[in-house]
């Protein structure tokens, strides 16, 4: 059968996934892993590029609780009692764990390794200088978690309008003063070097400061699927050693 030609409407697949959110993509990948021919149909990019890039497990329970859940895994049983119809309760602990393992394997093989487990929450800083509890973070971010004490320099870039190092440091220091996070912060804004006339957003910035030949960015280039995010978040490239280097140099 030679039906699968370009501009021809009739195609054959074993599985068609509708929607290119994280659930759709994972389902498609699982089916592909079992040897199925898979088609993903989606209207546009979906909202996945607008997320933080971290995988949240269970941040707060009950949801009005002021303190984040230390371990989503430990809280899961209690959560299920209150939320029997939640997807977590329906699929159960074992499947959640194996799904997260699968996600980690997949991202590792895609050269974007993730750190973290379902049994503990990281507190990561946000561009606003608040924190956000999450389970899995890209490995480049794992040294930036707010449980590690120390003095941190936040670098801002003049013209990067969705991140003010000043604002973030001010707010993070408020949280530190209240004892909610360990490190203290100060801010520095680098002058705008021009960036070759490109608009300064987090994607262009990441491209500009990436180490040459980084597997991650090369892969993004090849697949051509990476898109700039309108949602600001702290540049994942700045891990602790980079901060310390920055501290020495500034």
């Amino acid at each position, binding site marked *: 059968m030679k039906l699968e030609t370009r501009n021809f409407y009739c195609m054959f697949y074993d599985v068609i996934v509708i929607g290119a959110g994280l659930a759709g993509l994972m389902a498609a990948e699982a089916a592909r892993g079992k040897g199925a021919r898979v088609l993903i149909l989606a209207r546009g990019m979906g909202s996945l590029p*607008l997320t933080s890039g971290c995988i949240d497990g269970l941040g707060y329970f009950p949801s009005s609780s002021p303190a984040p859940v230390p371990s989503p895994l430990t809280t899961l049983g209690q959560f299920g009692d209150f939320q029997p119809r939640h997807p977590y309760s329906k699929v159960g602990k074992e499947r959640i764990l194996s799904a997260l393992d699968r996600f980690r394997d997949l991202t590792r093989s895609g050269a974007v390794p993730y750190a973290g487990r379902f049994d503990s929450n990281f507190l990561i800083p*946000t*561009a606003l200088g*608040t924190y956000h509890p999450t389970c899995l973070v890209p490995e480049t971010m794992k040294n930036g978690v707010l449980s590690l004490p120390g003095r941190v320099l936040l670098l801002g870039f003049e013209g990067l309008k969705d991140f003010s190092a000043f*604002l973030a440091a*001010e707010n993070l220091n*408020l949280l530190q003063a209240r004892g909610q996070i360990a490190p203290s912060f100060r801010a520095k804004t680098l002058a705008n070097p021009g960036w070759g*006339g490109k608009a*300064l957003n987090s994607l262009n910035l990441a491209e500009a400061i990436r180490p040459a030949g980084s597997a991650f960015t090369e892969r993004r280039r090849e697949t051509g699927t990476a898109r700039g995010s309108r949602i600001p978040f702290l540049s994942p490239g700045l891990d602790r050693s980079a901060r310390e280097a920055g501290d020495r140099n500034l």
Partner: protein
Amino acid sequence: MKTEVVVIGGGATGAGVFRDLALRGIDTILLEKKEFTSGTSGRNHGLLHSGGRYAVKDPDSGRECIRENLILRKIAAPCIEDTGGFFLSTPQDPPDYPDSFLKACEKIGIPAEEVPVADVLQKEPALSTQIMRAIQVPDGAIDPFRLIRANVEEGLQLGAKAFPHREVVSIQTEGGIIRGLRAKDSRTGEEFQVQCRFIVNAAGVWAGKIARMAGARLEVVFSKGSLIVLNQRLVNTVINRCRPPSNGDIFVPHGPALILGTTSLKTEEIEDPSASEEEVDLLLSEGEMLIPSAGVTRAIRAYAGVRPLIGARETEGDTRTISRDFLLLDHGAAVGVKGLFSIVGGKLTTYRLMAERTVDTICQEMGKHASCTTSEKPLPFPREYAFHDLVSRLNRISGSGSSSDILCECELVTRKEILDQVGKLSFSTLKEVQERTRAGMGPCQGGFCSPRLAALLAETGKIPPATSLAVLKKFLEERWKGTRPVLWGPQLKEEQLIQALYAELFNLDHL
């Protein structure tokens, strides 16, 4: 502090009285409990009335409106858009109303002219083809924020003093004569004393409360009016329904948006009025009679203001039958509190006249001969000011600098413009930035730019240290009040994104 006259209330009336007093060389201080224009003056249509709306039932108000309409066009031209207006009669409206309307307009001097419906439809193709008759009147759009600021600024230039965030807590009299008052800085809680001979109570919906502080009585009826902002300028002319005033019968084009209102409900909630979902439904279903696409156009916000009306409670629910005329009450003559004058009611369009009458009375009381000049003297406006027009803004912005300079993409407001506006102020607020530049007033309602604006205010020291998150949260709460009643279709989608950003990613609900 010591002065001749304290003006209470930083809305249109108070700001107008303040300017008039200053122009006549009378020492004065203006006190506003929140921010200027934060009450009813900033929560209306922004309509420069021709007076047509009141011509039939309330000819005195109508007459004042047309007289002041013409004066404001002279003295406040930069904050007025001369859109013109139509009164349109639909098959649902009383068929004899257009004739009584024309007659009433003629009697009180409103230039109203019947025009062919076909011509109107050609000029405004979004209008309903069901329209039976059309009458043209000199309505316009007026920006109350700029208008009031210009009044305050002229007073300041003349050496008078004006303070926002100062709430009056008590008024002192001695032998039935005003001696002074105590006010509180609502941000620091610090109290201070002002000695004065006269108090002008221009507190709007709070005027009754102020009068009571001095031992005087003033009955104010509260009438809530709700409005919706549509994200498209469907018409370029003010559109009124030609019938006795009712719900949802006025559209006013404002910059890139279109404002539909109002309702009229008796209320007791004056501190924090908001539009209800029922009112939104009512406004849209009435609005569709004039502009059929109004109901499917993206609504970006709903808001409410409370009219302080004077008069007998003629009806229980609807307060529309109470006159929209104003009242100047000399409490010295009324109950024996000498030196206290209350000026209440009226319209944004008639604020200047209200101020003139008030200051005339005070001059008489003082034995001072100084005539009013506000009907001739243009208000001071920044040189470059023009009504917000996205096309010319885009032309001006494109080619100059990068997109990084645009902090509000919806309304095309640059960082430089904001700094020009707030740079000289010793402190500022997000609301002030919005009102001065329109940043945050577009489709996302500040969802994306408010953190940038908060950062800019924090970095430039315009808000106190370590308050940026609180400032932002307050803004978002206020924003939510406006977006909540209009959440459907594209606005709902956008709201879910904003919700994900602030509640989930930034985790603001827990911090």
